[in-house]
């Protein structure tokens, strides 16, 4: 079909330009055969004489910042570079968030707790957060007793945590085994900070005690500073 159409059109097509081989708009002034002009088309067509070379353009402007610069140094990121490349980073998430309780290093897909799912399926928002009424709180009335077996796996904590130290310590004081650390009022940031600091102090004290144990055994018994109470047993101010 297409070839037939072309065949029909062909007889009417001119075999040569009526003006010959010359461009209808720009007349050739240079009979030597060397084109020394740049022709710009568009809204304002122009003809610029550009010297003795073909297609010569203005060179691109010099850029101050190129890939030849050490960009790490230019943006002052050398410190970050040496920080991340100097020492070997630990792979696990728990090494980045050492204060968080529970097991963090497993893949989130296992219990559908991925951050990706929060983005993929955004939670309902835009509503005002209000304290629960007493009627709403009634929904949280629990039966006494331990949790059923199938829900207890959540309570497992990694063995290397500082929390386990607390656990041992608290067992001595007769706190139920389910409670790893004393329940403090976490709504107060001061108390929260103190909890961390006290733990450190407790460790220091232990070492100091070991060293001076034999020499100062008698003194320790009577001294208020080295008395029976460890720092974590002192009442909170």
């Amino acid at each position: 079909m297409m070839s037939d159409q072309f065949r029909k059109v062909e007889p009417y097509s001119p075999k040569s330009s009526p003006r010959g081989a010359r461009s209808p708009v720009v007349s050739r002034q240079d009979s030597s055969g060397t084109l020394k002009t740049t022709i710009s088309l568009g809204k304002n067509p122009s003809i610029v004489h550009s010297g003795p070379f073909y297609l010569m353009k203005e060179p691109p402007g010099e850029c101050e910042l190129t890939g030849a610069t050490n960009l790490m140094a230019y943006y002052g990121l050398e410190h970050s570079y040496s920080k991340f490349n100097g020492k070997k980073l630990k792979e696990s998430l728990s090494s980045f968030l050492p204060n968080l309780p529970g097991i963090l290093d497993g893949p989130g897909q296992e219990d559908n707790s991925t951050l990706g799912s929060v983005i993929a399926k955004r939670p309902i928002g835009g509503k005002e957060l209000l304290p629960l009424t007493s009627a709403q709180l009634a929904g949280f009335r629990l039966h006494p007793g331990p949790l059923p077996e199938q829900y207890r796996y959540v309570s497992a904590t990694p063995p290397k945590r500082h929390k386990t130290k607390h656990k041992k310590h608290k067992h001595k004081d007769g706190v139920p085994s389910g409670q790893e650390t004393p329940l403090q009022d976490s709504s107060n940031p001061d108390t929260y900070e103190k909890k961390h600091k006290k733990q450190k102090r407790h460790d220091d004290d232990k070492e100091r005690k070991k060293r001076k144990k034999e020499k100062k055994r008698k003194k320790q018994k009577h001294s208020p500073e080295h008395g029976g109470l460890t720092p974590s047993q002192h009442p909170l101010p």
Partner: protein
Amino acid sequence: MSSPLENLETQLEMFIENVRQIRIIVSDFQPQGQSVLNQKIQSLVTGLQEVDKLKSQVHDIHVPTEVFDYIDQGRNPQLYTKDCIDKALAKNEEVKGKIDSYKRFKSHLLSELSKTFPNEIAKYKAIRGGE
């Protein structure tokens, strides 16, 4: 005064601590623990309100979604930063290599052309300002 990010971090840590305490309470629930549990639940709401208040302070902080993949796989998110730095450095070195190669190529080409076309290259250099 601490930065907005530090404030948010503290609030989130306090919230998580609160949840942990609720877990302890409910894992072996005692009848007298009901009032404490109710308090803790209310403090959860308060904690969420505090976090919500802080969102305006951190709205200009952008987190690449790729970081979430690292976290979801239980990996240290600093590894993402390290990977980015490594990639940026490698690309920087690659581009520097290209630029240096082109510079060498240009000077070599000019020197070779000036041997064959000395007049043209002299004109070219005159136009280009002695390049």
